[in-house]
């Protein structure tokens, strides 16, 4: 019995056999700094996804209560969400500009990179101002944050999304400052790549939020049934 246990202990483990030649001693595992930063960003996006997934589950669960007043009813503010479409267009333009900057940086074209990158940030600011304008419209029409859970979720979700974009704009601003300090392009290309990845993610996330916030109660009910929340 004793020998059997010892044999199991040795045989089951890759490093357990002292006679075995080790693998991987030639090349260290891992990657360069940009690769590390990209992995870190992707992990962060997983965390953000978890955050919004839970917000959306709470949204669906809460929407099944009887006091929910949809924002998409004929006289409600999102019956014709044209302002949100305008804002979405700004965010799309922002992503296009950043993608353009990213591609230009890969080809070491400084002017195009700077123009694309700065435009990307400006369009993102336009998106945020547009969202704030929508909030003002809500307030003007009497759709206050505590008026109804649908309103509350609208402010909450658009606000949290906006805060994430604001965080991105801080990173964007730091990179712009480095452009102004004439830091060479190769040293900035990683930041540009990371900003572009982050922006694309936030665009995708915004379309999920947009679709959900402007859906009908029937859609919420169908999702709730699918999730076992009803």
């Amino acid at each position: 019995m004793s020998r059997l246990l010892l044999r199991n202990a040795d045989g089951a483990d890759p490093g357990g056999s002292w006679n075995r030649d080790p693998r991987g001693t030639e090349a260290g595992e891992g990657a360069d700094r940009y690769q590390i930063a990209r992995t870190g960003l992707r992990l962060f996006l997983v965390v953000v996804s978890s955050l919004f997934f839970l917000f959306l589950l709470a949204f669906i669960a809460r929407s099944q209560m009887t006091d929910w007043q949809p924002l998409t009813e004929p006289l409600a503010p999102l019956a014709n969400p044209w302002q949100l479409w305008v804002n979405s267009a700004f965010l799309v333009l922002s992503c296009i500009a950043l993608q353009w900057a990213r591609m230009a940086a890969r080809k070491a074209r400084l002017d195009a990179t700077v123009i694309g990158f700065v435009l990307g940030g400006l369009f993102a600011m336009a998106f945020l101002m547009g969202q704030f304008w929508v909030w003002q419209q809500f307030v003007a029409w009497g759709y206050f944050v505590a008026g109804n859970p649908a309103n509350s979720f609208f402010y909450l979700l658009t606000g949290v999304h906006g805060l994430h974009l604001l965080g991105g704009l801080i990173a964007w601003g730091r990179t712009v400052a480095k452009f102004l300090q004439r830091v060479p392009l190769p040293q900035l290309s990683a930041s540009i790549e990371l900003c572009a990845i982050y922006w694309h993610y936030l665009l995708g996330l915004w379309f999920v939020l947009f679709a959900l916030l402007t859906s009908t109660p029937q859609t919420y009910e169908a999702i709730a049934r699918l999730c076992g929340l009803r």
Partner: protein
Amino acid sequence: MAYAEQAETEALHEPKSFLTKYVWSQDHKVIAIQYSLTALFVGLIAIVLSGLMRIQIGFPGSLAFMDASTYYQAMTMHGMIMVIYLLTALFLGGFGNYLIPLMVGARDMVFPYVNMLSYWFYLLAVVVLLSSFFVPGGPTGSGWTLYPPQSISQGTPGVEWGIVLMLVSLAIFIVAATMGGLNYVTTVLQARTHGMTLFRMPLSVWGIFMASIMALLAFPALFVSAVMMLFDKLLGTSFFMPAIISLGQPLAHQGGSPILFQHLFWFFGHPEVYIVALPAFGLVSDLISTHARKNIFGYRMMVWAIIAIGVLSFVVWAHHMYVSGMNPYFGFFFAVTTLIIAVPTALKVYNWVLTLWRGDIHLTVPMLFALAFIVTFLVGGLTGLFLGNVIVDIPLSDTYFVVAHFHMVMGVAPVLVVFGGIYHWFPKVTGRMLNDTLGKLHFWITFLGTYAIFFPMHYLGFQGMPRRYYAYDNYAFIPQSAQELNAFITVIALTVGVSQLLFVFNLAWSVFKGRPAGSNPWGAASLEWQTPNTPPIHGNWGAKLPVVHRWAYDYSVPGIEQDFVPQTVSAEELEQMRQLSAGTTIAGVKP
């Protein structure tokens, strides 16, 4: 270029000033010590709070300032501090920060600046939390689960300021934990040295790695619930608040779902149990293997068990909510998943025992704590199987049986590993040994004391003694014998609480006066003990990163006189050691 090669070519920017070296430090080792000291400090506050609660329960009315509100405030802060601000912070921020780079052969965490921010955000969270002791109304007394509507309704202690500060503090803590977690996971994935494959990592790293992933996924649930409750409290929304009449007045809220909060909270809360337990599992595996001078039994099984527990812990949360009136089919589902998660957990316990079996067990202080962990976790785990079944849980849910269960499995057991880990790695951190006699005294008082505290609570629970009451006198259904047992528990609890000062004194004394430890006092095989300097200097490894040739558990290798083979020993070097040992033996026999 691979990380290890790049790290060897880059210049080390060692901090020069006192501030950058010890305060605004980006060195993982300094940050680990900052995290640990802060966590131990708040832990001492939580112990004092528990002492106050025990005095009230054992000897009702003996504390003039202790009324129901104060009791609930102490209970809430004790629970929250212990679970979040002590255990989570210490295992991930303390042990994780110190051990991960050293154990995988990295120079530091991959994002040192973010790592530094993580600590300062944690400290800010602690300051915000503790500030609630000094605001009008004091801290919240809603219980550590902060269930609405009670937590934000008039009549609950700390409803004006305390609950707001608690929620804000939690949100800040989650930001800190996220910054730390991103570092730990990315470092493990991307910054391992030459030859350090995933399946050569010590189980400590595996435990902390998996717990960090879980923290990254589970903490958002607490963040969501905290933000939504802050909206309910401050902006008057009704995410969780139903229509309610409070103190005779209807509140403005309507339609909110308190059960939604419970789901969100426990979707975080149950993984949180394993966010604390998995690092403990990992650390204790290394302690047992090192101090039993035997390779860990079933290494791969242990790794897969850690992963399985991590995954399964996300589908058991509602076993905390059997009494919330859930659909019986849900209860059935969560009872089944709860029983399933016991399988990989039991597997780990078997493997620890099989590692010990016929090992060369050295009853050092870390080993004593590790052995105590196994039995304590076993007891706590077994009562968890009881409570995982709906039909058993419902009558026991609001009794001291639950208090006993979660203190054994989630309080005492991980804390024993914390102590064992500190006694084990203190020589690497400071270059000095902790005092052995004080350590053993601390161990026996803590170990026997915690059993004397929590074992009787199981019995009280079976007797039907309800939890959450602030005074148990004058209730006809609670017999006098229970009150006597409560007094006994209180005396022991105060003794154990005060005895922790032995540990604090030992830490403080040994840093300056402890016996010099040398570089590897336990004869451990894992990488952190092979650093060129003890304590390791900035950059950890000198000019070249270490090359790893084997796993971390080569103990008592046949044919080798030295009873451990460090991870850095190559096959050729091992052969030389073997020949040397053979020569020594022959030379030893001939005379």
